[in-house]
């Protein structure tokens, strides 16, 4: 199945409302773009989905189960949040090895994912010496270790060079084409229009548009135009 279902998610920190009732789905075989300006609540939603933060109310489920109850999380969901998610003093390979070990994956899988993301040559270098783009590649390699059915990526194109962006687009399209679920967040519209099938736009903790790419773009010229029309209040 591999459906991600977010239902009426509310998150408050003190008196501040970060999410004000977010609902949407991400389906298998499709790339779902989760778009919004910085601070709109994208990362908070994804962190709640991954059990890192707690929702004030509402649910975020993976195949009708919360992430924390998954039997084999790494083989079900591959996640990439901020940066590399690795300690800077370790080498890229050492980082992937402990993740692999905790999921009972074979060492050879570490070299496979290094190859997939193009980090083989930097695998023996410490993560602290990586560029932003290399760190993101390591994060993606970590997400791919368990060859999961679902990918959840927070701002995956951030820090990647044009080559990297082109590569990740193709890569994610292929994942979706093979029937897997891809949910990615971004505040960059131009980069995404060619990658996503479905679009969820959020602003100030609320969903302002949800549909296929064509539906959301609607009468606007581009996804970017639609995005600004939806997220800029009082714009002409």
């Amino acid at each position, binding site marked *: 199945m591999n459906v991600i279902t977010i239902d009426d998610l509310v998150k408050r920190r003190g008196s501040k409302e970060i999410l004000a009732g977010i609902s949407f789905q991400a389906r298998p075989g499709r790339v779902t773009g989760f778009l919004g300006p910085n601070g709109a609540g994208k990362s908070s939603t994804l*962190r709640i989905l*991954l059990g890192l933060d707690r929702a004030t109310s509402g649910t975020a489920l993976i195949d009708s189960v919360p992430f*924390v109850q998954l039997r084999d999380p790494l083989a079900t969901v591959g996640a990439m949040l901020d*940066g590399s998610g690795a300690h*800077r003093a370790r080498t890229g390979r050492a980082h992937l090895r*402990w*993740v692999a070990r*905790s999921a009972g994956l074979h060492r050879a899988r570490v070299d496979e994912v290094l190859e997939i993301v193009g980090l083989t040559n930097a695998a023996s270098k410490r993560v602290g010496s990586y560029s932003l783009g290399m760190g993101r590649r390591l*994060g993606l390699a970590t997400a791919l270790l368990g060859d999961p059915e679902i990918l959840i990526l927070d701002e995956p194109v951030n*820090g990647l060079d044009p080559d990297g962006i082109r590569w990740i687009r193709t890569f994610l399209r292929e994942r979706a084409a093979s029937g897997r679920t891809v949910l990615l967040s971004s505040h960059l519209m131009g980069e995404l229009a060619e990658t996503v099938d479905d679009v969820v736009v959020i602003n100030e903790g609320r969903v302002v548009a949800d549909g296929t790419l064509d539906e959301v773009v609607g009468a606007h010229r581009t996804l970017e135009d639609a995005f600004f029309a939806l997220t800029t209040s009082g714009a002409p």
Partner: protein
Amino acid sequence: MRALAAEAWKLASLPTVWIATAVGVLVPSVIAGITASATLGAITRGAGTVPGVDTGYQELAFGVVGAIILGVVGISSEYFTESEESGGGRQITTSLTVVPSRLRFLLTKISAIAIAAALLAIIAAATTMGVVRVVLGAHALTLGADDVPRLVGVVCYWVYTALLAFGITVLTRHGVIPLAVLIANTSVVTVTYLLTKITPLANYLPDMAGVRMFIRKLADNTVEISPLTGGLVMTAWVAVLLVIAAIAFTRRDA
């Protein structure tokens, strides 16, 4: 077991853990070497002193700094934030997406740190006692059956101290303050020791009670606490702190 193997590998692949190991082994053995050669000098001069009953053990009480570093970095490394240019990520997000159950993650971490601290204590105790014997030669007190519970006490003390440092760092989510405070308390400004001058109750603070497991004569201290009582008091402190840490860790946002 897989998660424990991963945590052990995490510790082993962290350079600061090797610094902790070096500190834990070198500090007590070097101090023991210096003290023992001073004692030997006094004996050969005919000053008549014999090595004290706490020779080697005193030094191991200082060497626990290695266990403190281990306990702190074992968890502070999870919260270490990458620079803004590198994306500002933290390893804890990866750890909790691999082992989503907070309690299980924490228990695994505690086990890995306890095992590492025990190994470190065994190596440090063997090295320190070895140095004392090499330096003092025939003048060294022979290690007998009495020393077995004392050496077990050393290992317990190191494991508990590592876990105290760990528990405090789980709460602070940052290594610098617990590291500075705990190391200072063990070496330069022994606040807990000074407190015993003010109130005898301070003898029941975790470190003051814990050292009773293997130290027989505390300087200027008349309060009698048996090794077993000392050990139980420290166990209680560790248990309470770890429960508080677990409650905080499972409730708050990562």
